């Protein structure tokens, strides 16, 4: 991983330059996919002048694109930070985006992540239009299946919504539209990571936008192929993502303790079709939770209060058919882990490792609820509402941790 070769000027941008073009940047896709992605762009922006930066576009595909879509101007750019080529947008992507946008005096940016060839032209256009209409951050709302993006449903969405007040359903979206000032803010954060050779660090645009009081817009994006991580297992990835999110919560503690998040009514959940034939087997997840209850009780007792431990004990004794993890129990458990992360009650690696079985218990409960006929998307909304309702619990424990010590 190369270090940054240049320092980025991240002074506050002064809004879109009137004559600047929109910049669309594609993260590395591979030679086959980049052609399809460029075709998509051509369809999305017919008749509009747009600058496109694609690192892995060959000269052939660029020449071909010039012939077919003369409104797309391909940029030859050297990235300031080596792209991590991961499955989510990373610090290097945000750093490179702003560098290119600034050099080309763009009016706004759209950053398309891995597998962006599967994103519809309408969705790309929607992101660009939202930025053009004055939004600082445009976040897509994907049409995902009931058993996809479960970490997002269990953790990322409810925590981001309750703590930062950001409503987007996919706070770690792999495609984003940004105003120049939003891109500048994210690049400033990204630069801290890239300067230390941590190009693959995760970024939380929704939290940054909320903390800066920027406008956030959600755009319907339809279906998309979600890029999947290849090498690591669930434990490692969950720890990586949760660690980054918890650190973000810690960083903006002063902001979210002041910000009042009023619990909102359930928003319209897109109905999700369930296929009863492919009902997943939840027993291994429940066995994992029961095994963890027997062995990790000592560690959990350092983090969780007695009433949560009692609730977990009851859960561990439930038959799998009637296994249900209460929304409030899950919300408070996550909040207790966030607090323990902040207080370093135990080693952070151990703490995040001890969260995995609890997450699996939530997944099992979510799937069983969906199987019993409850709309999974509605359940996710209820969980998010529980996080909002219990935010006072986190604030109290954050301010006076000793008062509630287990």
């Amino acid at each position, binding site marked *: 991983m190369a270090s940054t070769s240049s320092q980025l000027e991240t002074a506050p941008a002064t809004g879109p330059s009137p004559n600047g073009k929109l910049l669309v940047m594609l993260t590395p896709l591979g030679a086959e996919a980049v052609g399809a992605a460029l075709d998509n762009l051509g369809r999305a922006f017919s008749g509009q002048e747009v600058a496109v930066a694609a690192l892995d576009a060959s000269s052939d595909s660029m020449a071909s694109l010039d012939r077919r879509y003369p409104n797309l101007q391909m940029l030859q750019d050297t990235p300031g930070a080596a792209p991590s080529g991961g499955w989510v947008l990373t610090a290097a992507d945000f750093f490179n985006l702003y560098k290119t946008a600034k050099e080309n005096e763009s009016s706004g940016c759209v950053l398309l992540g891995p597998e962006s060839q599967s994103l519809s032209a309408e969705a790309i256009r929607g992101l660009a239009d939202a930025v053009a209409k004055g939004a600082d951050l445009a976040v897509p709302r994907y049409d995902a299946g009931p058993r996809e993006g*479960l*970490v997002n449903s269990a953790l990322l969405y409810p925590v981001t919504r309750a703590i930062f007040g950001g409503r987007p359903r996919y706070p770690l979206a792999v495609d984003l539209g940004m105003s120049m000032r939003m891109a500048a803010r994210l690049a400033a954060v990204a630069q801290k990571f890239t300067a230390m050779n941590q190009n693959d660090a995760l970024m939380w645009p929704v939290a940054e936008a909320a903390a800066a009081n920027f406008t956030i817009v959600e755009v319907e994006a339809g279906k998309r192929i979600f890029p999947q991580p290849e090498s690591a297992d*669930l434990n490692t990835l969950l720890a990586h993502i949760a660690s980054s999110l918890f650190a973000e919560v810690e*960083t903006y503690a002063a902001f979210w303790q002041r910000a009042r998040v009023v619990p909102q009514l359930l928003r319209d959940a897109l109905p999700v079709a369930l296929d009863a034939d492919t009902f997943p087997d939840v027993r291994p997840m429940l066995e*994992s939770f029961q095994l963890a209850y*027997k*062995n990790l009780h000592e*560690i959990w007792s350092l983090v969780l209060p007695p009433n949560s431990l009692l609730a977990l004990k009851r859960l561990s004794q439930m038959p799998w058919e009637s296994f249900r993890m209460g929304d409030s129990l899950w919300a408070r458990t996550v909040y207790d882990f966030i607090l323990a992360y902040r207080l370093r009650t135990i080693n952070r690696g151990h703490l995040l490792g001890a969260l995995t079985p609890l997450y*699996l218990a939530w997944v099992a409960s979510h799937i069983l609820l969906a199987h019993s006929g409850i709309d999974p998307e509605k359940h996710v909304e209820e969980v998010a509402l529980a996080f909002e309702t219990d935010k006072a619990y986190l604030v109290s424990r954050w301010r006076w941790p000793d008062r509630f010590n287990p």
Partner: protein
Amino acid sequence: MGHIFNLAIQTYQEVSADPVPQPGGPSIWDQMGGALHNSIYRVLSFFISLLPGLLALVLAIAIFTAIGFLVSYLLRRTLTAVKFDDRMARNRAVDISSSIQDWAPSHSPTMLVARTAFWLCVVLGFVVGISAFDASYSSSTRVSTFLLPYLTHSVGAVLLLIAGNLIARFLARSVLIGAVNAQLAYARFLSLGVKWLVLVLTAAMVLDHLGIGGNIVELAFGILFGGIVLTLALAVGLGSREIVSRSLERTADRMPQRPVDGPSRPSETLRHF
């Protein structure tokens, strides 16, 4: 102290006045008394000769502890003034500082730095004091050559013991959590095994450092360590043969393309990310 010193001088004079018993002279009881007086004199002389060194040791520890308090206080004030904790939180990407803090959870970076400085001063005081103590005694006496190595190695031994305990606790938890997430039924057993392996290793190192036991400790440690490893190997090899083979088969099946699943691949249709 003066009384003891007078007794020592008197004993010495009595013994030196009549060095060789003559026939018809002092009885065997007198000779035994003389020998006892001699012995008391020698021991008292030895302790008196140690007193300056001991005083220097205590003084060095006290002075350096006071310096440690002062340094710690100044560091705490300075770091609080420059908002060191906030800066560390902002620069959360610095993994090195984060991992250092993980060894001492529940303390802020400022407290960690201040306490580290304090304990470094205390240890330095010990080192200086023991060095002064070492210089003040006569190396010709038998008692000093027997006693002093323990004292001079005690600082290192205590540090070894603390480090060993920390590492044992850290590794035991790491193994426990890793094994539970891998759904191994004998997770606690593995964790305890690792913990005792490290503790036994630490105990052997401490004894070796102090020079106690010599070959017996090495031999006992070898037998005990080997026994624990053999027990674990037998437990895993015999008790979990089927689990291991199933796990290997599953891994072989998944080799071409491995999606991210739960610890034991709960379902084909679940996607966590």
